[in-house]
């Protein structure tokens, strides 16, 4: 170790003490805009294009977040899954992608015993894996079965999307892109959809593309009867 003279020793000790005592003050230098309470991010999905597609949204999502299959379909994570439903009376079938619905009143947040499940001020529901204990209450509570438990040791995750064994995860609405580009952001699934069936935007902004389309054409939430007010809305759900 280098020998310090008296002056250097005092200077370095003072710096160290300042950081230990005043970490909050120190971090005031961070000037990023971050999540804003004015926004309510959401997605509008037109399911009429979903029937004969090649699941491009799922592939893109899993590539963006490095979600890989371990050839164990029962436990592999699915951030988006395509669900096919059938009307028994008419035999009409349709498919729709289901991911975390980013509810206004999320059941997963209600039941989380540690506070790991949380909703950001802009409405995005996330898991804080630092304090997630893997109890899976949220998976039981979610009426959309949107959450996944990671059963395998992972390595070489994508930097923008840390994820690991023993914790729960779900769609983040590509929050890293939103934090970077705000309302101009596009989610990975939106970018990949060949039929432009997915629109991302701010539900609180009346002039946003998503709000205009909702005003003109309307949309439905899945299980709207639960009054959770999801931020993911669907068109073409008629069976």
């Amino acid at each position: 170790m280098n020998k310090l003279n008296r002056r250097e020793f005092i200077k370095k000790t003072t710096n160290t003490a300042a950081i230990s005592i005043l970490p909050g003050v120190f971090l005031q230098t961070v000037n990023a805009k971050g999540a804003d309470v004015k926004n309510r991010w959401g997605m509008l999905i037109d399911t009429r294009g979903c029937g004969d597609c090649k699941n491009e949204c799922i592939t893109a999502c899993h590539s963006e977040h490095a979600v890989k299959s371990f050839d164990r379909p029962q436990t592999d994570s699915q951030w988006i899954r395509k669900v096919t439903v059938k009307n028994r009376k008419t035999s009409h079938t349709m498919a729709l992608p289901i991911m975390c619905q980013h509810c206004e009143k999320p059941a997963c947040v209600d039941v989380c015993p540690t506070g790991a499940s949380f909703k950001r001020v802009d409405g995005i529901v996330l898991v804080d894996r630092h304090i997630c204990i893997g109890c899976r209450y949220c998976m039981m509570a979610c009426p959309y079965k949107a959450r996944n438990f990671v059963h395998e040791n992972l390595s070489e995750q994508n930097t923008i999307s840390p994820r690991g064994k023993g914790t729960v995860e779900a769609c983040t609405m590509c929050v890293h892109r939103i934090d970077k580009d705000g309302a101009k952001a596009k989610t990975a699934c939106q970018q990949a959809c060949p039929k432009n069936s997915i629109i991302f935007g701010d539900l609180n902004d009346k002039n946003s593309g998503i709000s205009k389309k909702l005003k003109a054409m309307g949309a439905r939430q899945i299980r709207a009867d639960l009054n959770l007010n999801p931020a993911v809305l669907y068109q073409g759900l008629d069976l």
Partner: protein
Amino acid sequence: MSFFVSFAIHADDNNSYLPKAKAGTKCVEDRQIMRTNHMDLILHQRDKTMRDGKRDGRHSLKECINCHVTKNDKNEYPNIDSSQHFCNSCHTYVAVKTDCFSCHRSIPENKQVKK
């Protein structure tokens, strides 16, 4: 904690392998401050990033890895299992387990561990 820190400070005297950071880069803080406080800096910033969405802070784990995890003598990026990984080179010595890399990427972004 001070016990561990004093060991950490002496690690480069006793540990033969301490990987060098990427050439031409300078650490965001003084070496002594990083040695004693890196865990606090990262801890505070992680909450800012995840809960508040403020992602341009200067103490991100991502940037630590991008600079400090460099190719070893075999021209490979050592992952966290290797004793040649920057974090491991000290943490193994002081017997303090890092849990960061069960979720976080342990090598620089857009780089692969060659096998």
